[in-house]
Each structure stands twice: as structure tokens, then as C-alpha cells.
């Protein structure tokens, strides 16, 4: 989708500024998530503390961007793609803020897990799942920055992998817990972290849905992936089949 220039230069700048702030917020949330995951995998207590206390700035950005969107709606009465941009931004930042919350949760659990590491060894599973989640988060922010609906649809298909990883990990944790009830405490913490990771993936997917809304003007929430592909991206199917 191409975004042309408004006659009003200031209107341009306002929308551009909102977009930039969202990308900035996305960058911050992404680095929070990375840090939280690193703290979890490396049993790094200091890093975990750092993430757990820096959620504040993400929250503040959400409030600021919300306010700016309200101002643009009141003063400019955006229409068509501008309107969709503002609406999508308002929704994207809600999901970004939630991702920040999940990162904070992961950091809090990993602080506790770091005190007695290696009791429950799920390092490789968690690391694999984290990589998947991080790539989804990164790519969905990228799709938002480049207004790339095709990219967004591709990301929507990756959720299944994360769910499978979560299943695998849960089974592993169950065996640990059955082996020795003293493992239950830590196994639950790991399980909650995995759950948070999965939630981050879900929020990133929501962002992809807003990108499709923004670019195509179609609301694809609560729609199956096959339906989205066949209805709005018939071209992709032709390519992949041929």
C-alpha cells in the first residue's frame, strides 16, 4: 500500500509521527521480550529485575499514542486509509502493551527460577519456542512498518508451530512433576513462562490482523486462515500451487 502526501503538511507529519512512535514502542517491546527470554534461558537475575521494572515506559508510550490518536480524530476527522491507520494503531498498541506485560511476567518468574536453576531442565525446548515467538514478533512489527499484508498473512500461519511446542513442553513438564513432587513449583513457573511466550505469539498475530485490515480494509479477526487466504489473497495460492 502506498501512502501519499496530504495537502496539509502538518497532517502528514502528525500521522507520520504516530506511526514512528508505534514502531518505537514496538522496538522497545521487542527488546523487553528479548531480554526477558535471555534472563529466562541464562538464569540471569539482574537482567530479569531490569525487565520487571522497565515496563513503565511501555505503558507510558501506550497512553501517549492513544492521546495523539484521539487528537487526530478530533482535529482531522481522518477517512479511508488514514482512518484505518488510526484505528489499527490504537489496537496495535494495546497488543504491544500486553506483550510488554507478558515479558514482565516472564522476567518475574525467571527471577525465581534463577535461584535454583537446572532442577527442571527444559532449556532446549524453551529456547526453541522463544526463537519462534521472537521471529513472529519481529516479523509482525516488520509487516506493520512496511504495510505488508502478504507478509502478515504468512505470519498468521506460523501460530500452529508455537502451539505444538507448547504442547510438547507441557508434556515434558508433567513427567518432571510426576517424577518428583518437589519439582512442581519450578515446573509450574516454567509452564507459566511458556504460556506467556505463547500469548506473546498470539498478540503478535493480532498485530498481523490489524496490518491486513489497514492495507486491505478487511476485518479478518475470528476468520480461519484458509478463508483469509482464499478470499483476500487468491494470488498467493495460485503461486504456491503452481
Amino acid at each position, binding site marked *: 500500500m502506498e501512502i*501519499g502526501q496530504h495537502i*496539509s503538511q502538518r497532517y502528514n507529519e502528525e500521522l507520520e509521527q504516530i506511526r514512528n512512535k508505534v514502531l518505537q514502542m514496538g522496538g522497545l517491546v521487542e527488546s523487553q521480550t528479548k531480554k526477558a527470554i535471555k534472563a529466562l534461558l541464562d538464569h540471569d537475575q539482574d537482567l530479569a529485575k531490569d525487565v520487571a521494572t522497565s515496563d513503565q515506559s511501555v505503558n507510558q508510550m501506550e497512553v501517549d499514542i492513544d492521546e495523539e490518536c484521539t487528537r487526530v480524530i478530533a*482535529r482531522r476527522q481522518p477517512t479511508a486509509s*488514514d482512518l484505518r491507520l488510526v484505528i489499527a494503531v490504537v489496537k496495535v498498541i494495546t497488543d504491544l502493551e500486553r506483550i510488554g506485560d507478558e515479558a514482565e511476567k516472564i522476567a518475574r518468574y525467571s527471577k525465581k527460577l534463577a535461584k535454583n536453576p537446572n532442577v527442571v531442565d527444559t532449556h532446549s525446548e524453551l529456547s526453541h519456542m522463544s526463537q519462534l515467538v521472537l521471529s513472529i514478533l519481529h516479523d509482525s512489527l516488520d509487516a506493520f512498518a512496511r504495510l505488508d499484508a502478504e507478509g502478515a498473512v504468512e505470519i498468521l500461519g506460523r501460530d500452529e508451530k508455537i502451539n505444538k511446542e507448547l504442547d510438547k513442553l507441557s508434556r515434558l513438564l508433567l513427567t518432571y512433576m510426576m517424577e518428583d513432587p518437589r519439582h512442581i513449583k519450578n515446573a509450574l513457573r516454567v509452564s507459566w513462562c511458556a504460556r506467556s511466550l505463547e500469548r506473546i505469539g498470539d498478540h503478535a498475530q493480532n498485530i498481523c490482523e490489524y496490518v491486513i485490515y489497514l492495507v486491505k480494509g478487511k476485518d479478518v479477526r475470528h476468520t480461519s486462515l484458509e478463508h483469509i487466504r482464499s478470499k483476500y489473497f487468491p494470488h498467493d495460492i495460485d503461486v504456491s500451487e503452481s
Partner: protein
Amino acid sequence: MSDILNTVPGMPSADSLERSEVKPENHRSEFDVEINGTVGKPFVDNAKMSSRNCNVFYGDKQAIFDVDLDIGNNEILAMIGPSGCGKSTYLRVLNRMNDTIPICRVEGEHTLDGEDIYGKKTDPVLLRARVGMVFQKPNPFPKSIYDNVAYGARLHGLASNRSELDDLVEASLIKAGLFKEVKDDLQKPGTGLSGGQQQRLCIARAIAVDPEVILMDEPTSALDPIATATIEELMDELKSKYTIAIVTHSMQQAARVSQRTAYFHLGKLVEVNETDKVFTNPEHQLTENYITGRFG
């Protein structure tokens, strides 16, 4: 003032003088985008008025190119577009107002309820009673409020005696939402009313002859927001009885009052769609550019 201008998308920026002269590289001129016919849904099932292959010329200059458009029964159709795009000219085609311009030539088929309005049998005066018009500037006759409203009814002999005429005037003023304000001053001159009241008086005058279609050419562009809101509210009520076509420069107004919106550009009809669709997800790039206030 500059703030007000800047809050209206599509209005030229008030600080355009200070703006840098350099245009962005991805600037696309309005001539870059080709208009190949109309996108969207120009036709409806229950058409009250319709035009096919409408071409209008002022002398050698063509003002409207091949417009096909239906106006549905009891709907409000908004026509938007930059100045000189032909929307007002098209509106005037619909009740033969262009007949009064000697160099103007209208081609194509234009029907009201399936009857050819440019046919030999059609009397333009009777046509204009069925297809009324309200103009940008309120233009009450220099007569009393009562006579303003009664004028058309007298001309067309719609009332047989004084009390019938009184009832008609009162009913029209009530429909136009003006009666309460003027009921004790019916004999005072219509020109003494405020702008918004004058415009409602003109609407009352238009509906007094019981038209089927009301054409409005920027009816609120000279009015304040409150008078504008009153007239928009009035349009909403009127649409249950009449079919309304409105030309407006205010996109917010088109978005507020209409069910369908038609976008004209350089004499061509670019897009017609449900108003909801036009203002959230227009099909044509030119429509998008215009309603978001981008370089056309």
C-alpha cells in the same frame, strides 16, 4: 482560522504559503491515474431518477463524460469532488436547469420514474415542480414568509381556497422545521430571517409544491454549524418521503447524511458506493486521495 481550515481534510492547507516548494518525489498528479468508467455500484434496483451516457457540453468544452448513475427511491445520494468536476452541472441536468444556459448541450437518456425528462412532451416547469432544487445561497423572494412558501402552490394551483393554502404553508414550514420560529411573523419579509432560517424557508418553498425529488446544491455551505445540523436533521426526516441528491464540498456532511456517495473527477464519475464503504475503504485511488485530503 488556519486551525479551522486545517482540521478539514481536503481543504487547502492554510499555511500553504510557508510550505516548501519542493514536492515529494512520489507526488502523483491527478492526470497519472486513469479513469476507466465508474467503479462501485452506480445502479440500484429502485431507481427514482437515472441517467445513461450523460454528456454535457458548454460550447466546445465538455463538462461531463459518459456518466451512468441511478438515484434510488427515498435515498440521499451525496455527490462530492473537487471544484469543476461537474457535480453541480450533473445536478442541474436532473431538473433541466441547464436549459437556461444557451451554450449548454445535454446528451444521453435521463429519466424520472422511467419517463424521459428531456422528451418533447415534458414541460420543464412541471418537471421542476416534481424535482425541486435548493441552492447554495438562500434565495427567498422579496415577499412575505407566507408568500414565499405559497408561491409555487399558487403557480401550480395546488390549493383551491385560502384555508387550504394556509394549511399547505403551515405544513411545509413544519416539515422544514421553521414553523415554530416564524408562526407569528408569517407576513414579515422572508429576507429578514437569518441565513439558516432563510435556507429552511427555501426548503419549505421547495417542498410546498410536493416534489418527488429534491436537489440540493451545497445547501449549507453558507450556514453555521447549528443551522447546518438542523438542515441535515431535516434531510434525514425528508428522505422518508422524498428522494434527495445533494452536492457538497463538506465530506463530513456527505458522510453524515447520505446513504450512497458518488465521487466526480474532471467531469467523470469515478466511484459510486455505499457511503460507509467510500469513507472507510474506497475502491478507487482517486476517491481515496480526495477524501483523505491528499494530492489529487
